[in-house]
């Protein structure tokens, strides 16, 4: 490789990352203003408020010490999540495909697992003022079970995050393996090359089923209603994010929008065969997918209540079965 190609690649990667962050910052606003507010027949917030202005505002707030047994680890978790999402996006870019195992499905699944494990740790480490922290004499004369161990609400959401690792991520991971089943290779470069030769998977039967499975998995990973049991307002208020303030909260906000874009890009790599690259027109497809998914998600979440396990398990099981079916179709054809 000549010097100028490397320079171009580095430029392309940086420019794509910046574009991804900008689009990712707009996505929560688009979801809130143009989808949910429209369904709810109200005006809704400005597009820039939830995604761009809120993180900037939090960035300038006082940096309070979180109420946590290990504040250092707790504070570093959103930054780790953010870096992991950047790594996933890097792995998707065509300039990086020569790095071998880093750009395989296995690596992406590993990175996504980090994201999920972070929720467990966040929940376990956060000790918010909102439940046990509020001083109130509730264990008084006549109280039932006065000697029971008491836990914070975030412990509850930590338990839930743990369960979600066990079953919640099945649909997404199965969907990621559908292209592998069709192509016979775990490397993204091969998957993209195969699709550019034989047409996108989304037009085949297996790919079409895989799209549905991927979308459900996408919603579960983003903890959006109806799959928001991790952070539902009805009991755990905000779940693992309870104690984040100032810069760390702005990282939480940024990571969410960025993850939305990254998963959209992942979908367009795996099912349409167009990697995110700012120097080709294909980036428009990436952006379109990254916007269409949150819009669909906004419609879904505006019309659904939060699922408890009673509803969660059947949805996950049936989508996983669909995913298995798609893989079988992919292997047979």
């Amino acid at each position, binding site marked *: 490789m000549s010097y100028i190609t490397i320079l171009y690649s580095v430029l392309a990667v940086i420019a794509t990352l910046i574009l991804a962050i900008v689009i990712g910052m707009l996505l929560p606003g688009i979801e809130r203003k143009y989808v949910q507010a429209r369904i709810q027949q*109200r005006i809704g*917030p400005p597009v820039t408020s*939830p995604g761009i202005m809120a993180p900037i*505002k939090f960035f300038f707030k006082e940096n*309070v010490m979180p109420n946590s047994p290990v504040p250092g680890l707790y504070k570093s978790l959103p930054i780790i999540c953010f870096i992991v999402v950047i790594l996933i996006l890097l792995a998707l870019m065509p300039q990086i495909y020569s790095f071998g195992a880093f750009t395989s499905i296995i690596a992406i699944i590993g990175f996504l697992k980090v994201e999920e494990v972070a929720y467990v740790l966040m929940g376990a480490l956060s000790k918010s003022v*909102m439940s046990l922290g*509020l001083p109130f004499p509730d264990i008084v004369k006549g109280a039932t079970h006065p000697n029971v161990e008491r836990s914070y609400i975030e412990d509850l959401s930590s338990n839930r995050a743990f369960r979600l690792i066990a079953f919640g991520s099945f649909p997404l991971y199965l969907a990621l393996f559908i292209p592998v089943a069709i192509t016979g290779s775990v490397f993204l470069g091969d998957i993209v090359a195969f699709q550019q030769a034989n047409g996108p998977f989304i037009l085949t039967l297996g790919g079409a089923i895989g799209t549905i499975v991927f979308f459900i998995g996408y919603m579960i990973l983003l903890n959006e209603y109806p799959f928001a049991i991790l952070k539902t307002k009805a009991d755990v208020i905000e779940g693992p994010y309870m*104690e984040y*303030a100032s810069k760390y909260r702005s990282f939480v906000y940024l990571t969410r929008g960025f993850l939305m874009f990254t998963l959209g890009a992942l979908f367009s790599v795996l099912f349409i065969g167009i990697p995110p690259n700012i120097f080709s027109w294909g980036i428009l497809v990436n952006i379109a997918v990254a916007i269409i998914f949150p819009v669909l998600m906004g419609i879904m979440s505006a019309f659904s209540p939060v699922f408890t396990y009673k509803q969660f398990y059947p949805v996950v099981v049936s989508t996983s079965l669909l995913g298995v079916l798609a893989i079988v179709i992919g292997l047979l054809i």
Partner: protein
Amino acid sequence: MSLKSFSRARAVHLMLVYTGGCNGCDIEIVNCVLSPKFDAEQYKVFLTWNPREADVLVVTGPVTRFNEEPLKKIYEAIPEPKAVVAAGACALMGGVYKNIHGDIPSEEIMGPVENIIPVDAKVPGCAVRPQDILSGVVAALPKLLNAD
């Protein structure tokens, strides 16, 4: 206008604490946030229930004895800069509960809110109207915008 105040004016997170009023103000405030008729989000005011996320604390009610400590704790949990809006007659002067018998104060009422935490904006009314809540939050904004 610096980026700091520009962003602060465009994303205001509001937290509500009810300290033992009659529910009238409380429902009106929830109404002002959730009802499409008032829709606080169009004025860039977002409802949150997490003190770490909040900028503006709206307090209603006369602060009964068992609400005093939780209110202080929640106020302390909010990172600077923060503003407090006291909404309703009870939050402003204890309402009918504090001083009904002339000089004999009620033992139960620790309020008004000013006695417990510093108040930046006061919204009168029994019960407050949803529109007044929004203007009260706006009245408290300069404190946020001009802070460091």
